[in-house]
């Protein structure tokens, strides 16, 4: 009887410690927390979106469509980090790293490519006060800067959900789009941003337009649907 009680207490203590860890260290809570998840067969962007929403993990992803067509995640009990490892093991050119509680998933060649607009530096950028405005403003400024332009012209959809994710005041100088995006995710770890490039060495305006048109944002406190106008990971 006492052994049963002791085991129960130990389990309770473990559970309590997990809860306390979650409460005490929100950056680590989602990446290391283990829970049961369903199985999934999906392309890479949707697999990343699944992990992000299932585990409430902010993910910044820059991937190319010339990856595997299908990722397989078996049903089981895992952490987000373990599933990211699983995904990466099924892809040839990708990697991931944890940056202050944010999972950064990237195509290794694409990350270094000069045609990747996330490598474009903005002379100055001030974080807007919410993620919805970041979605519109950063995208427009990177689109212009990638073409050597300074101004922006916008026709875009603000997000009701992302507009609830507040951002602190912060200014950047000579920062890349990637730096700004990851910094914003650290400051407001309630969104995921997945950019699908047409190739790992994007070139020209067509490739730029494609990637801009396949830049998906997900609110982790969402009630609205993420953009779903066709598979983001489609071949051209």
């Amino acid at each position, binding site marked *: 009887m006492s052994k049963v009680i002791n085991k129960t207490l130990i389990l309770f203590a473990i559970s309590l410690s997990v809860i306390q860890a979650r409460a005490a260290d929100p950056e680590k809570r989602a990446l290391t927390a283990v829970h049961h998840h369903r199985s999934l067969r999906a392309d890479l962007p949707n697999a990343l979106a699944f992990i992000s929403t299932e585990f409430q993990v902010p993910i910044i992803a820059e991937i190319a469509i010339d990856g595997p067509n299908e990722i397989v995640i078996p049903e089981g009990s895992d952490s987000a980090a373990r599933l990211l490892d699983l995904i990466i093991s099924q892809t040839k050119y990708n990697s991931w790293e944890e940056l202050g509680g944010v999972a950064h998933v990237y195509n290794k060649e694409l990350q270094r490519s000069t045609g990747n607009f996330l490598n474009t530096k903005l*002379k*100055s950028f*001030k974080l807007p006060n919410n993620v919805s405005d970041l979605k*519109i403003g950063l*995208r*427009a400024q990177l*689109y*212009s800067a990638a*073409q050597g*332009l*300074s*101004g*922006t*012209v*916008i*026709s*875009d*959809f*603000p*997000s*009701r959900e992302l507009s609830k994710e507040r951002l602190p005041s912060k200014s950047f100088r000579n920062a890349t789009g990637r730096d700004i995006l990851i910094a914003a995710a650290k400051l407001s770890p309630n969104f995921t941003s997945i950019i699908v490039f047409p190739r790992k060495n994007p070139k020209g305006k067509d490739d730029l*337009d*494609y990637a*801009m*048109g*396949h*830049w*998906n944002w997900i609110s982790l406190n969402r009630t*609205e*649907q993420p*953009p*779903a*106008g*066709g598979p*983001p990971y489609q071949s051209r």
Partner: protein
Amino acid sequence: MGPMWKGGMWKVDTTHNSLITAGNGGGTAATVAFSLFAADGKSRYDFPDRTLQAGEQIWVDVAKVIQSQLPDKNGKTLPLGTAAGSYQIQDLDHPLIGYIFEGKLVLDKTYGHVGYGCARCCAKSVAQYDDPLGLFVGDGSAQWVAATDDCTGGSQDVTKYSYGWYSSNTSVVEVDYNGASTAMGAGTAEIDAFIDVVSDTMYADPCPTATMMPSAYVNVSPTITSISPAHGVSAANTQVTITGTGLAGATVQAGPGISVSISSSSSTQIQATFAIASNATNGQRQVTATNNGAISNAVNFLVQVPTSLDVVSDTGSVQDVSCTVSGSTYNGVRRDILYRVMDANVQPILTSGMSLTESFQAGTNSCTGTPNTPTPTVNAPSDSLGQFPNVDRLAICSVACLPANSSGNPTGSCTLSVTQTWTANGFTVRTNQIAYHCSSVAVTPQ
């Protein structure tokens, strides 16, 4: 028994025939004169006189007499197509106290209804009413039987004399011993009963009792009480739930332009995908379910073709955008417009998940340092109101708008013009001319 019987009715057509019998019920031989009459007595057929020994009985198939055109003892025939008439049987040897008895069967070849009569009795035909009987699954019905007197043509309800009701298929219709039936599942069944009929007597002698078996078909149809959603959009699939009765294993018909794929069905529900063709026309369709050949009632399903975009809200130009260009800042403008998709009848398409896209064609651009077109956007799915999930925000920040005055407002000016084309599920629904200015955004049409 008697010396003569006159006026008994017979019937011969595509579904009926009559068999008439005459017999000698006496102890000695008797000569019988047997005649058929038609056309109010204008046609007459006289069989040759015949001597019947005691206990002997003969039968006449009236249909054969007419169809064979065999002449009677006077060389006459009844015209082909003769459908009804009467007959007379006479005992020529015993005019006062005859020994002849007589009987008649009228056969209904379609439903097996049988009328029976004898010489001094008027025959009765019995039949169930409402044959075939149409029911929907779950309906209850009390079937009843009527008897028609062949002499008078009068009809009366004889249901209370029926018994032993049964159904040929209890999965379609159940019927209790007394005739109360309940439609169980879609399909066709036959319900039968027994009934003992006593013909009315024309004389003092009692008429014999005949046991007959009237039958009727019951067609039980599935029912559709609702379909949800009751609308879908062209060039897309719509998952629908059809609720009703008798639906297990049913097929669904949804009208032109809609291909139906059933994923599951139970007795009360069908889950199906309506694949609506891109060339399907705008309008109502009649959706029915068919089960075992029985067709349900129809319910409406509206096919909507995206035709236009309606402006739900428009903020107009609002000066609350902070533009930082080349290190300088000014108050830029934005304009937020919320659209919803309308069908060919200018009704909103209340469907979520429509693929809404915008594309641009560059016009003139005097706004230094800005792209000629806005940043390409991700496709947006419509919400359940058929609206874009969020407003379309239009804004511009250009160095050409600088410098800002003391209030932070732009003093420079420029115009960037684009043609903006919207599509919904591939249908072009709106084309806007947008002129971005430093302090306003003009959209045509409004």
